[in-house]
């Protein structure tokens, strides 16, 4: 059996989004580097404030998740942060987040890194932790302040944001996690060496052999093993490095626009990397109804894909409004130009 299903059923008992308020239109990036006329992969992307990073953004998303979970933060048994933009190379983000949200000291805290699927990797680990009975509640966060080299095609999309989920017993869940599946190979499509500021990527190699190969494998295996197909889900969310890839992927498997548009946020905010799938899931949970099934498939370069299915429960109705919605963060926006963007992203050399 290839599926990942814990002994004790588990689910999401709280979720919370975070997206910083600044936006740079793709046309503004195009104006600087490529001329006005070039087509752009998305409309605009989110940019973190001068005082924000993966830790501060994770703290806010985690507080939102705790508000919806309605548990005492002291009941958490693990705080795991998935990101490829941890503020420190050495020193965990998880301990700062745990302290800030008031978690107990008797927890596991760690940082996950698997390019864009570090967040869902933390979710899978949380499923095992709770499902094995080692603890009742695990906080798993996917959050990034992604960097794109100035002028590189990734600069259009490398955005900031993410979401936190609290994994707990299925009996308390607002969405039960039915099953997960993870598929990985050694594929160098995108990477960043230890002290480098910007990532490198294999250009068109990031498409078929990386994004599509891994997602297709994980989705196909997941569907085969669970005996489901696109029509069994009301919503679907895929990793979304741009607007085009996830739509092409979704259509390949027979998903319709109605199924994937709620979770497709990259056209409005860009690619939030480790945050992308969890943020899309958060947008779906904001409107899903009890009984709805949700399919989610993450992709991380290097490379691998995690697939999940969720079943929404009655509890969603009572806890949904206990924190700001994903759309509230999307609609809260201040547009900035390239000069301000360059300051926010530390692109000016000051010394």
């Amino acid at each position: 059996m290839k599926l990942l299903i814990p002994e004790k059923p588990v689910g999401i008992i709280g979720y919370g989004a975070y997206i910083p308020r600044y936006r740079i239109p793709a046309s503004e990036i195009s104006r600087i580097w490529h001329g006005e006329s070039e087509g752009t992969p998305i409309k605009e992307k989110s940019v973190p404030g001068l005082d924000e990073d993966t830790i501060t953004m994770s703290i806010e998303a985690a507080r939102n998740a705790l508000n919806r979970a309605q548990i005492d933060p002291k009941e958490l048994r693990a705080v795991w942060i998935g990101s490829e933009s941890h503020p420190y190379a050495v020193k965990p983000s998880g301990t700062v987040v745990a302290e800030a949200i008031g978690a107990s000291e008797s927890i596991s805290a760690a940082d996950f890194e698997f390019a864009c699927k570090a967040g869902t990797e933390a979710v899978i680990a949380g499923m095992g932790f709770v499902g094995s009975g080692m603890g009742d509640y695990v906080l798993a966060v996917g959050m990034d302040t992604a960097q794109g080299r100035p002028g590189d095609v990734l600069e259009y999309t490398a955005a900031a944001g993410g979401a936190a989920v609290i994994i707990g017993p299925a009996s308390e869940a607002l969405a039960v996690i039915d099953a997960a599946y993870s598929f990985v190979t050694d594929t160098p499509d995108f990477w960043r060496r230890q002290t480098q500021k910007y990532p490198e990527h294999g250009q068109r190699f990031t498409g078929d052999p990386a994004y599509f190969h891994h997602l297709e494998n994980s989705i196909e295996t997941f569907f085969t093993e669970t005996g489901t197909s696109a029509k069994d889900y009301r919503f679907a969310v895929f990793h979304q490095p741009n607007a085009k890839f996830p739509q092409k992927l979704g259509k390949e498997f027979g998903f319709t626009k109605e199924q994937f548009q709620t979770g497709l946020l990259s056209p409005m905010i860009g690619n939030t990397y480790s945050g992308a799938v969890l943020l899309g899931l958060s947008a779906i949970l904001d409107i899903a109804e009890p009984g709805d099934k949700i399919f989610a498939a993450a992709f991380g370069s290097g490379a691998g894909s995690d697939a999940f299915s969720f079943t929404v429960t009655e509890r969603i109705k009572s806890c949904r409004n206990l924190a700001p919605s994903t759309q509230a963060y999307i609609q809260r926006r201040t547009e900035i130009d390239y000069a301000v963007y360059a300051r926010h992203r530390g692109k000016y050399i000051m010394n």
Partner: protein
Amino acid sequence: MEAPRHWRLKKQRYSLTGEVCPHCSAKIFPPRDVCPECGQEAKTAFQFSGKGEVFSYTAITDAPAGYQDQAPYAIALVKLNEGPIVTAQLTDLGTEPVRIGMPVEMVTRRIKDDGNERGVILYGYKFRPVMQG
């Protein structure tokens, strides 16, 4: 670099953890050994909600050393719903002008790098206009 000092104050800084006086119930921030209201000993931790309103404010354009990265910024006295007033920066103001009485909520943000890019990052409370929705 002053890692011990920031470490000692992390609970206050990260999440506005203060005290409630066991004798007169006054809420106290920052925490201190002697209650400023009744003069008796106070040591019971109290978690503030982080909600409050701007009591007064100004703008800093000529930021002090270590704070230029985020200048210009607004700094305010924020009156917490539970009573005490705290000094803090305002952030994510957007186009809304700051005014006395403006409802604000606490967020945890980067305050500064302790030393330089090699130092510890100092995180702490700031306030922003209350988020809708």
